[in-house]
């Protein structure tokens, strides 16, 4: 009886893995179909609308650049969260860590611009990382010392960070003599180097490098083993001699640091000054892509590209096809939801 019981699941798990690989595609198709219904209801031609959408995201060099630039910060945050979520540390504070990273890195850009450029860029990026880590250490300490749930603390700190930035650019950091709630413009020396003739900057290259790095970290280093063990069952990890608290702090530091780096990368390349509204919800999109990509770095990369393309395509749908922006947003949300739903369904069936 034992023999039959154990040989069978091996075979069915092969079927299950094919099914689970196909699930996101199936989910996306279902989402697109539901979206088509909505477009029909809005009185437009769904096929044309979708063509506009795809063209908007991938229709030419400019569009592809836009999509890639949008992918970079989402992916960077998503990769950090992948490591954290693997340890079952639910950092919902990517948004706040992104803001504080932008803030500390931005201070470097504003006040240390006289440094030699390579040094300036390194210090600025490190500033971003440190800012993100510092912001993530608050929930880390609260969790380790008092057992406070990190979901609540990280979420709340998002608002603190966003409003802190709003305050600073209206007060101490406001451009001298300026009227708008922004800091002074960064020195051109703070621009990240980019591929000649394009807007693709060094940050994009770094994110691409991070994909295999995070994968390696999780599955080829003792640290990754410890993080995954804590995520699998912390009581067992503790039994196995793993310092669970240290793993929690590490997970928050890694995800916070990468979110902070994404923050400074964005302000140094896109906004070139500190101000409010610099994120566009990247911190939350990062959570989404980490889950959508099943906490696997390659999957997260695909999910980030997919999500960025959806956002850009939805914008184009609105601008070009004249669909209401709410509809475009709704379609984007429906597609993501269908992918997650089908994924969960397949997991439930095979599990």
């Amino acid at each position, binding site marked *: 009886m034992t023999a039959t019981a154990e040989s069978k699941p091996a075979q069915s798990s092969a079927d299950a893995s094919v099914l689970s690989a196909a699930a996101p595609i199936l989910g996306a198709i279902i989402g697109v179909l539901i979206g088509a219904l909505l477009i029909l209801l809005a009185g437009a031609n769904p096929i044309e609308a979708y063509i506009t959408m795809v063209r908007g995201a991938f229709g030419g060099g400019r569009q592809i650049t836009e999509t890639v630039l949008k992918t970079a910060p989402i992916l960077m945050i998503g990769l950090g969260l992948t490591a954290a979520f693997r340890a079952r540390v639910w950092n919902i504070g990517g948004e706040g860590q992104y803001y504080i990273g932008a803030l500390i890195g931005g201070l470097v850009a504003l006040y240390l611009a006289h440094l030699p450029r390579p040094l300036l860029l390194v210090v600025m990026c490190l500033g971003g990382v440190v800012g993100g880590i510092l912001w993530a250490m608050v929930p880390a300490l609260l969790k380790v010392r008092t057992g406070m749930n990190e979901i609540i603390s990280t979420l709340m700190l998002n608002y603190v960070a966003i409003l802190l930035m709003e305050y600073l650019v209206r007060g101490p950091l406001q451009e001298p003599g300026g009227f708008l709630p922004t800091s002074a413009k960064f020195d051109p020396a703070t621009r990240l180097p980019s591929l000649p003739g394009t807007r693709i900057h060094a940050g994009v290259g770094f994110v691409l490098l991070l994909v295999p790095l995070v994968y390696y970290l999780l599955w080829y*280093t003792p640290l990754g*083993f410890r993080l995954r063990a804590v995520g699998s069952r912390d009581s067992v990890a503790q039994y196995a001699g793993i*310092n669970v608290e240290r793993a929690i702090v590490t997970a928050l530091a890694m995800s916070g640091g990468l979110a902070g780096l994404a923050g400074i990368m964005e302000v140094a390349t896109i906004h070139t000054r500190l101000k409010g509204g610099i994120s566009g919800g990247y911190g939350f999109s990062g959570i989404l892509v980490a889950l959508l990509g099943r906490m696997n770095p390659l999957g997260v990369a695909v999910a980030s590209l997919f999500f960025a393309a959806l956002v850009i395509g939805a914008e184009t749908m609105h601008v070009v096809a004249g669909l209401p922006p709410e509809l475009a947003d709704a379609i984007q949300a429906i597609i993501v939801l269908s992918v997650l739903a089908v994924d969960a369904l397949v997991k439930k069936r095979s599990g």
Partner: protein
Amino acid sequence: MTESREPIVEMRGIVKRFPGVVANASIDFTLYDGEIHALLGENGAGKTTLMNVLYGLYQPDGGTVFLRGRQVHFSSARQAIQHRLGMVHQHFMLVEPFTVAENIVLGIPSPREPLTEDMTEVCRRIEQVSEQYKLRVSPEAPVWTLSVGEQQRVEILKALYRGAEILILDEPTAVLTPQEVDELLEVLRHMTGEGKSIILISHKLGEVLAVSDRITVLRDGHVVDTVPAEGTNRETLARMMVGRDVVMKVSKEPSTPRDVALRLGGVRARNDRGLIAVDGVSLDVREGEILGVAGVAGNGQAELEEVITGLRKAESGTVEVCGQDVTNASPRQVGECGLAHIPSDRYRRGLLPDFSVAENLVLQRVDKPPFTRMHRLNWQAIRREAKRLVRDFDVRTPSVQASAGKLSGGNAQKMILARELARAPQVLVAAQPTRGLDVSAVEFVHRTLVERRNAGVAILLFSTELDEIMALSDRIAVMCGGRIVDTLDASEADVEQIGLMMGGVDPCRLGEEDL
């Protein structure tokens, strides 16, 4: 009770398949009115599956069920309850913060919806029932304050309160002291006197022989035989269960204990509720001996186990492993001093269910060479070690890459045993090492422990199975109320005497202790 030969339950040709397994292959089973009928078999023989079919929790793939001569088909437990069936599961289904009475009426629609029932009336009726069946328990007591034996009484009361005529008990004695077992068996006999019929699922030969009228033995989903309890014996039943002769006794030479490898001095510790659970325990375990700690579950053994292995802080006292003071050291430090640990809570402590067997087998050693070199995991070395251990310890798994959560209980325990012994410990803390395992796996674990003891390992064995303590130990310490009541030489120990000490000649329930 045997004169009434009216079949009350008849199951004919029951077939139940799960993916890849036939749990019940055409089983016939008859329960007569007023009898106690034991279902005996190893884990995975299909006992619980058969009863879950009867109770409406599973739908059979074939066969029919007759109740009092009429064919029935239950698609849920609710229907079974309406037909006056009751089941007491192995794991209690009680809400701990609720009182006994609240637990008993939980799920019964109140006649005063949406208000709850009149609880004084409910309590009165519960007292009636508990009086009638001699199941003493206070209806107003919150469940978490009750002992395990009392919680079980609540479960039985729950079924009786709902009007059960036929009672199914799944491994009811697994958690009880010898004295509590006797009490339960007494209650069961009394209940058949009051006209109830009882099905008792068990793999313990002694109690089955003591209380049943008839015994049906299952093996691999088939009925081996149904025999009257009178005229059979342990050896015959064991052979029927396992399909071969079973060595009931562990063979071992007298021990040759050497230096003290584990020394506990006046250890005190609190449980999760903040009450003193270990109250001044001092013990020495020598190399080459097995010291068995006997006791009823919940008398501080689990907390003591955790203090020794670094998982719980000691309030006071000392723990020494191989001469080094490891009081309140981390599990890692304790491990590095030469202590390995088979945890009593296999699933909360022993294995990572979604990690592979290979990863689980190197759990504590993964960051040491050859498994990690230059900060890089060496998967080849990890798998090689895993394959070796799986082979040596006969862990049945499709591959070392399969997830550990898919292993059966016996194989999971063998995996844990393999992992802990691969660390070449000088001290082994083995807590409930055979809980829930079938006869063959128990044999394997026992043999391995004795082998290691012969090789000079100091073994501290915690077990709530007195038979196991008696079979393996060189010395026996009896634990009750967080204290060691007495330590005896195994050759002089006597079951009755130990049972009395375990059960508390003086009141020794935990929980009433002051902070």
